[in-house]
């Protein structure tokens, strides 16, 4: 198979997401699509996979023009995309999800399909049981299922959008081995959209770099991280140094706290965090980090033990009590939990303010100032869902109240590129500084 992009253009309002992109991709290659947040990677991939049409330009599949803006046509032409959040239906089983999208005439019956799942899973080393429900799977397993489903539909070009976000190291190894097999053995085109340079370096044969909607580079691997960073940003970036700060009094104390959800339990957890400390929680996703972080903000109630904030017992109190005591929580899912789709940036800022009436002019000015300060690409009138992921994250930082006592950040750099993470990093550091907290990194490792 050969894919040829011919002069693809796409604009959203004032933003030129893709400008005159021409590119040819050949069978058997793993191609990394690199670029910072908002560089136009996702747009280009969405055009290829039929989720949205280009304004102008064409995509040729083995010389035949692809019917634009139609995911089904794209799949029929052999192009499938694995979304960052896999497109599965959670109450249903692996088997049921596996058969979605199949052409009615060629639909497998459930016995054949179950057999197929077992065979394919064994072939790729995937860990999937046809009868499991989606809600019991990890993100990594859901990806595996989606890849198998797309392959079953006869996909010859597989697009993966940030596939290594939220999956374990072992799952990543399995995924990469499977992708190498697909490219080298089966001759698929594999397109990897990623911010993670180490993934791109480990996996790809070729790298295509976008910057501001323009194709700025097309490079055969191997290449060094420094070279790729320079291509992505047009300049070399230097890491920031860390200042050390003397530790203060106790900010948060967990006293034999037991937390539970459906999947995992944290038993008798004890921890003391002092002002000035930064604590990192490492480990596989779903090992209990989420529970502890949410308990810090009063979003999960402990079934035993005590949570003390600045020496005050807040066990079992509502989120608002924690908030009033200076706890700021920012969740991993930005638009689901944290930001409100349909509200403009100004409205977001206004709703966090106090006072009965809203002076829109003043709010707009404040928003414009925050936009500038946090380097958000958007206007005060933009609705939040119109911003790219990195810009949403940065705006979320702008919404955090000043002078928090305790800043609880759940995967604050998820889906961010180096530059966005740097900006977010420096700004949350600013907040931490104001609260006399800073960096004595004390990682806590978590296992099941």
């Amino acid at each position, binding site marked *: 198979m050969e894919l040829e992009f011919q002069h693809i253009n796409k604009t959203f309002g004032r933003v030129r997401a893709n400008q005159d992109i021409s590119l040819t991709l050949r069978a058997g290659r793993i191609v990394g699509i690199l670029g910072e947040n908002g560089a136009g990677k996702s747009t280009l991939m969405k055009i290829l996979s039929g989720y949205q049409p280009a304004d102008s330009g064409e995509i040729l599949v083995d010389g035949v023009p692809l019917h634009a803006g139609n995911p089904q046509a794209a799949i029929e032409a052999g192009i499938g995309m694995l979304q960052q959040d896999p497109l599965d239906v959670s109450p249903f089983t692996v088997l049921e999800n596996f058969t979605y999208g199949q052409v009615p005439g060629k639909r497998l019956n459930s016995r054949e399909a179950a057999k197929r799942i077992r065979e394919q899973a064994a072939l790729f080393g995937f860990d999937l049981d046809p009868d499991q429900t989606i809600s019991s799977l990890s993100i990594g397993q859901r990806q595996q299922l989606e890849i198998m489903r797309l392959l079953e539909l006869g996909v010859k070009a597989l697009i993966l959008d940030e596939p290594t976000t939220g999956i374990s190291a072992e799952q990543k190894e399995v995924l990469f081995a499977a992708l190498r097999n697909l490219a080298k053995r089966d001759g698929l085109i594999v397109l990897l959209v990623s911010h993670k340079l180490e993934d791109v370096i480990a996996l790809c044969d070729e790298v295509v770099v976008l910057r501001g909607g323009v194709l700025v580079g097309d490079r055969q691997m191997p290449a060094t991280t420094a070279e790729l960073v320079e291509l992505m940003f047009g300049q070399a970036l230097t890491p920031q140094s860390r200042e050390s700060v003397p530790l203060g009094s106790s900010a948060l104390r967990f006293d034999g706290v037991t937390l539970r959800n459906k999947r995992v339990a944290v038993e008798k957890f004890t921890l003391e965090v002092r002002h000035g400390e930064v604590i990192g929680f490492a480990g596989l996703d779903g090992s209990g980090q989420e529970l502890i972080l949410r308990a810090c903000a009063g979003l999960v109630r402990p079934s035993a033990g005590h949570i003390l904030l600045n020496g005050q017992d807040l066990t079992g109190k509502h989120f608002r009590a924690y908030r009033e005591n200076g706890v700021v929580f920012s969740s991993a899912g930005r638009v*689901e939990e944290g930001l*409100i*789709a349909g*509200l403009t940036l100004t409205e977001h800022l206004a*709703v966090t303010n106090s006072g009965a009436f*809203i002076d829109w002019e003043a709010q707009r000015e404040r928003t414009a100032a925050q936009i500038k300060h946090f380097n958000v690409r958007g206007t005060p009138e933009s609705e939040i869902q119109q911003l790219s992921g990195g810009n949403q994250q940065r705006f979320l930082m702008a919404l955090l109240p000043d002078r928090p006592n305790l800043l609880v950040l759940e995967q604050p750099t998820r889906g961010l590129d180096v530059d966005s993470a740097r900006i977010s990093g420096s700004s949350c550091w600013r907040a931490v500084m104001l609260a006399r907290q800073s960096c004595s990194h004390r990682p806590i490792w978590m296992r099941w």
Partner: protein
Amino acid sequence: MSNPKVVRILFVLLSIGASLLVTSVLVMVVGQSPLDVLDRIWQGAFRNSESTAGVFNFWIPLALCSMGLILTFTAGLWNIGAEGQVLAGAIAASWAARTFVLPNEIQIPLELLFAVAGGALWGLLIGILKTRFGVNEIFGGVGLNAIISVYSIYLIAGPWQPPEGGSAQSTQPFPDHALLHPMNETFPVSLIALILTAVAIVAVYLLLRGTRWGLQLKATGKNAKSALLLGVPTTRATLTALMAGGVLAGLAGAYRVLFTYDSLRPNVSGGIGYLGLLLVLLTGMSAIWTPIVAFIFAAILSGSTRLRVSLGLDSSLAGVLQGILVLSMLLFNGVRQRWEERRKSKTVTPSAVESQPTPSNAKAASGE
């Protein structure tokens, strides 16, 4: 064609035209002239000041109830319970009308106060069921509607029946000092109610445009989880939205018993709670369009009562026209949204800002 406001009005007119056309075909099928029918409806609604007053008398409670529903819908609440809140207001006002013997100028505000409290209480109950016990507001609303409806019939047939014996048709008519009075003979509309309705319309508009509370309702309605994390008191937003909706619905109920009728009757609301829901969905919760579309509905409903007398057609034809009107408005709304989206993605400057509050409105609202 580039001004989106003009386009919006154009689409509303277009949908009214289309629904008239479809109704015309239906009328022609039964061998009547659609022009005649339209003329009669128009005559029924606006032939003289008394009939125009009839339109207003239907419009006032409908508009009150709909404006309240805008608030609850903004907070993301499907307030099916509006119908029950109208009834609660009607019963509370009736109780006050039967109980107190005071001069009209004191008695009326007192009755309205009771109606407001009754409606608010019935709304609050839905809110408590939802926030405390996790009962969806739709189920809570349907349940409370049924309870209050049965209770009103019990009152009419039981304790509040006329001394000459209950026919379950109505309670004893309230004394004159307890009733709202028309402003004059030729235009029999209650001035107090008209003023209250106008105030309600403006207040809802301003609340949503320029106050923190209005924005909190919007935030809660769009994503309660995120709103909570941003510091919005989402439980309070839910409860207050339902209470505010109940206040306006309660006023509508009071109007029905104190002016439209002179007593409490079964089905005293005449379904305005449900009609209001339809209206608010139709206008996309617009505080400007809702009273206007409510007026069109009131005119059709009020005007069609003459169809039977003059053409021998049942007035339920008005229901048909209304139904088609709703469908065609929804249809044209969809067409317009598509058209706007296409236009948005084509033009270079984003035009997604039109629906946002403008500084001048906001200033007016914040009283600066």
